[in-house]
């Protein structure tokens, strides 16, 4: 080794962390570049829709681009200042999904000029990004949330119950309507309940994991800890069945089972969860005519055509996906409006599938996989069980949600109404998703931030907590 080289090596060692503990780069520049790309892609989509419809460049293109870009920039600044180590992929992915969702809604507005949805969605997106910034700035440490776990559960349940006292909209009592606004409190409840689940399971995971009787290789959970679990399950499922919002009911239960498994690592819980879900689904679909109808639609999507009633929504949705083929018809050139009701919300994926094809759908699923995967990555990087479980819950939420609604509109599973994260029309949903991303940014910042150098004197100090 030459002298200068040795000197350089020594200097590097002296200036940096120990070699076994290199600090992760902040990667804020990459985030900014990706954000610009996301905004650019969204504006491109907006312009393409305009061209496809033989308009010139839509007059709002510049304003739309500037607005989305400005919001993205503000969010970026908040992250740069308050969560400098946050995962650089989370924010750009969310901005891109939200931007493309606005493009799709703008595109579908062209088919329903009397009932535009894009302006309201833009306002809700702004509110969502505002809340994102607020969470990133105000919530310095995710562990603060652990202290409010019980309050979260109470507020969450309240939010789920309140809509029962409001009139049903399209058969589901999930809305609060007042002063021209309508919000879906169940969307916010998702996050609150997830916080509670994470806190409860973090506190009780040892009891859940290591007590109970063994039956063969399965170890059944003890009744003492099973009680609260079943209670939560009954409450949320009961409330949601009353509201006839079965997608959300399924989602809550799914999140709970996922977190239970993540906390305990016990397949016995999975077995219990799957049994409960199966029993619940079978019972509900047998008793509840609404759900029963959905199952029949799923099994026979073309029954309406055979009966002379014309294609139902699911059949129209399948037609739309098939019309898209591999490469799609091109933005603005499909006919997904044939789906009619809920084309901008529950069925928005059909427009994506028809106009962007299987190629576009694959890209979309990759985007969701990125969002979900980065959430799990944050969960793996943390050492506190609450944080890890919260990250798992927040990552599983969009994953399950995408599966339930995308599987529903493509005929994989029975259709249950649910918002496709960031894409579907719906203010409450978009705001909630921004809060989820904000929490994931906060958690990933903690996971990737350099930790205090381990004290070599302390015995048994955790090394690489991974």
């Amino acid at each position: 080794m030459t002298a200068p080289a040795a000197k350089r090596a020594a200097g590097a060692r002296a200036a940096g962390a120990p070699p076994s503990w290199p600090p992760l780069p902040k990667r804020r520049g990459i985030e900014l570049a990706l954000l610009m790309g996301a905004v650019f892609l969204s504006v491109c989509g907006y312009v393409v829709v305009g061209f496809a419809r033989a308009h010139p460049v839509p007059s709002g293109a510049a304003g739309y681009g500037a607005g989305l870009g400005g919001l993205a920039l503000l969010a970026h600044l908040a992250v740069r200042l308050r969560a400098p180590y946050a995962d650089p992929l989370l924010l750009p992915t969310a901005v891109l999904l939200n931007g493309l969702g606005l493009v799709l809604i703008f595109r579908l507005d062209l088919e329903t000029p009397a009932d535009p949805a894009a302006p309201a969605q833009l306002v809700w997106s702004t509110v969502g990004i505002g809340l994102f910034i607020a969470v990133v700035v105000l919530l310095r440490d995710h562990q603060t949330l652990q202290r409010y776990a019980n309050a979260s559960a109470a507020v969450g349940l309240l939010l789920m119950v309140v809509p029962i006292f409001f009139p049903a909209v399209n058969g589901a009592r999930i809305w609060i309507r007042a002063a021209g606004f309508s919000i879906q409190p169940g969307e916010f409840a998702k996050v609150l309940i997830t916080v509670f689940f994470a806190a409860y399971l973090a506190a009780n995971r040892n009891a859940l994991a290591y007590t109970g009787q063994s039956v063969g290789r399965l170890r059944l959970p003890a009744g003492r800890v099973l009680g609260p679990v079943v209670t939560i399950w009954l409450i949320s499922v009961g409330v949601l069945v009353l509201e006839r919002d079965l997608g959300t009911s399924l989602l809550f239960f799914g999140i709970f089972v996922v977190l239970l498994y993540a906390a305990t690592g016990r397949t016995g819980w999975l077995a219990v969860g799957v049994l409960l879900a199966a029993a619940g689904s079978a019972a509900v679909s047998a008793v509840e005519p609404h759900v029963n109808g959905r199952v029949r639609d799923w099994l026979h999507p073309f029954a309406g055509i055979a009966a002379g009633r014309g294609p139902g929504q699911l059949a129209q949705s399948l037609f739309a996906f098939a019309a898209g083929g591999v490469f799609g018809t091109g933005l603005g050139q499909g006919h997904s409006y044939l789906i009619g009701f809920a084309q901008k919300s529950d069925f928005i994926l059909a427009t994506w599938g028809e106009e962007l094809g299987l190629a576009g759908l694959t890209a979309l699923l990759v985007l969701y996989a990125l969002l979900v995967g980065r959430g799990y990555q944050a969960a793996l990087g943390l050492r506190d069980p609450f944080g890890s479980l919260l990250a798992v819950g927040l990552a599983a939420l969009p994953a399950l949600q995408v599966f339930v609604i995308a599987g529903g509109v493509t005929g994989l599973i029975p259709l249950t109404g649910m918002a496709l994260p960031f894409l579907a029309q719906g203010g409450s949903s978009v705001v909630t998703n921004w809060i989820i991303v904000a929490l994931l940014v906060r958690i990933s910042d903690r996971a990737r931030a350099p930790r205090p150098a381990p004290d070599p004197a302390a015995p048994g100090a955790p090394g690489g907590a991974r």
Partner: protein
Amino acid sequence: MTRAIRHTAAFSFLLLVALLVNAVRVQVLEADGYNANPANRRASIVRYAQPRGTVEVGGRPVTGSRDSGGRLRYERTYTEGPLYAPVTGFSSQLYGTSLIEHAEDGILAGTDYRLELFPWWDRLTGTHRPGGRVETTINPAMQRAAYRGLDGRKGAVAAIEPRSGRVLALVSSPSYDPNELSGNGASVSDAWRRLNRAAQQPMLNRALRQTYPPGSVFKVVTATAALESGRVRDLDAPLDIRDPYTLPGTRTSLGNPAPGCEDAGLKEAFRLSCNTVFARLGVDVGLREMAATAERFGFNDRGLRIPSPVAPSTFDTRMDPAQLALSSIGQYDTAATPLQMAMVASAVANDGQLTPPYLVDKVTDAGGVLVAAGARGPTQQVMNPATAEQLQEMMTEVVAHGSGRPAAIDGFTVGGKTGTAQHGVRNEGTPYAWFISWVRKKDNHEPVVAVAVVVEDAEAEREDISGGGSAGPIARAVMAAGLR
């Protein structure tokens, strides 16, 4: 906990992969089935999203497109619907297409692969070509003359250019207005029901799809067989066929409307349209030879398309001699479309050569670049040119000194044959008046037009066995229009 988190992550990805696999199923593997589902309106929306290509007559479009502003955006319009309906057919958003609109649908709708400039790229980008243009062989003046001549009476006219086979006029009467069927509203279904129930059957294309007993005009075919088989060699030699003629094996006797048939030669018998002579000649020639001759003219051909399918004209191939005798004068089961009889006149006029008729002159793309020329079939020799010459002489005689006089045109050579066909139970129906003819210049052997006219409601001419009084003037008007 790390292991369990990894498992939940893997589970989440599994869900997304399941979505992707299912999307491949819907968008690729099963896509064709969904796209072809009749309840899927996309095909019609795309089809009607652009103006339909035009059908042209004499270089001028006779069809158009109207922006309805509805979901199925463009509706077909017809400039002179009833006049050209037997040529164009209809293009309806509810009831599909017919005739040229049907036969050339791919070109008119822009979906025909021959319109694609860069097939691979067009298919990838889903580009739709504008509809092409279909130029017909119809001569508008002749079409109009035929339409005016029929004047709403039940009947049909078919005219052909003998050398080329171009269909110059194709009229069916009474006609209908295809404009009424274009859209998709209640008025369209009402019109459809009304037109289909109408006693006059206005949507029946009588020139192509209706067969009539040809009656005496079939004697051209019988005369051809008699000459070609050598049964008759001298047109003027008396044939000595008894009047009345008792059908072989029966006691039914066949008479003639006019005297002078017993000692007539073939030419005179043809002029007088002697049933006794031609019934007997048919029996003498024999079933096999009669059927072969008729088939050379195009009878019993199920495959004729112009490009719309033409109903086969029939001449039975299994008959006893009495039936053969009646068939030889165009009765019994013998039946012919007006187009078929125009082909008979055409073959005679064209020295025994039959050129298959065709209606589409050429097909171009929207910019006028040739895509395809009309399908011309090979010319067939139906009879000896010498026989054709003799038949021309006989037919000229009918117009010069016989029942075909109303079709004569000063300064031109016109040959023709009249006919009145009995039909109905015990022949009690109103007889059909037939006239087939051709015309050429006196100093030029090339025939200009061959035409066949049939008039169903020839009530006034019941006594006039010739049919010349009713159908002849129409044939004359059509030929005269073609000579201008």
